[in-house]
């Protein structure tokens, strides 16, 4: 193998873990900041009761579109039937752009574009929504 390729291979192999860490290291969420951000959700959502949107109690680990008695959009029900579950990853993508992640959702909200704010909100939801 020519020396150039050997050096290039070394750099690629050496840089790969760094790139992996950078790509796989989402912001750490702060539930205190997240509680403040949750204020934005309070026209439609509550932790404990169904409103225009479904309650968030028991959200983490719950199948999408599955709160009993809540009138979901067909799109949201279909996502749940396809196996989608609310966890940190799905919440992050949904909150970033709800109508792009689940087209047809009734959550007509442009989304939270700041990754740190999403992490904070998810940290709060994990804490506040514990239990069923």
């Amino acid at each position, binding site marked *: 193998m020519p020396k150039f390729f050997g050096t290039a291979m070394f750099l690629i192999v050496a840089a790969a873990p760094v790139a992996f860490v950078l790509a796989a290291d989402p912001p750490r969420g702060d539930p205190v900041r997240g509680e403040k951000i949750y*204020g*934005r*959700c*309070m*026209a*439609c*959502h509550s932790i*404990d*009761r*169904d*409103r*225009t949107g479904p309650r968030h109690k028991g959200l983490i680990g719950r199948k999408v579109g599955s709160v009993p008695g809540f009138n979901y*959009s067909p799109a949201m029900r279909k996502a749940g039937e396809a196996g989608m579950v609310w966890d940190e990853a799905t919440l992050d993508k949904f909150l970033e752009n709800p*109508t792009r992640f689940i087209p047809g959702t*009734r*959550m*007509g*909200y*442009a*989304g939270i574009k700041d990754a740190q704010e999403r992490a904070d909100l998810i940290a709060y939801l994990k804490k506040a929504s514990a239990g069923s």
Partner: protein
Amino acid sequence: MEAMQPSFRLFSARRLFLTRSGQTVLSAAAVALLAGSESLAAEQKKSGAKTSDVSILNTALGAEQEAVAAYQVGAESGLLQKPVLDLAVQFQGHHKAHADLLAKTVTKLGGKPIEAKRTAEYKFPVETLKTQADVLRFAAGLEQGAVSAYLGAVPLFANRDLSKAAASILGDEAMHWAILRQALGENPVPDAFVS
């Protein structure tokens, strides 16, 4: 509540202004923005985005209907004293105006407006409302959420007239929120931007 006394004085001055001007401004402007726009329906019928716009409007309608019911609960709680009670009733009137307009617009676009629930079905946390401040804080939370909800809806409408109308309602909700914060002794406008 002693901490709220200065706010009451502000309320008295604002009440005079609000009761004279607030009730007609939104309806006239918003009707011109939305329900009176014949081109809106024509344009939307050509667009595949009609369903999406109707869905967003219906979501907003549901939140407005809940706000109307929430203010009714607050007004009937016996916890609100004048002039706060008068303001609550006036804000409720604004939410009714928003809801009426949103329902008419949904109909104009060929959709079916969602119907308001009975008050009991909203399951408001009435057990936590023991003082006037509790009621105001609860209302402030709804208004804050409404500001964010409309802010999040503005860029999604396919029709810019709807975005403009949503921004008009957003401004009204933001004023409610600021006045409620003032009444609670909090900074009425804590940030340069709403989010």
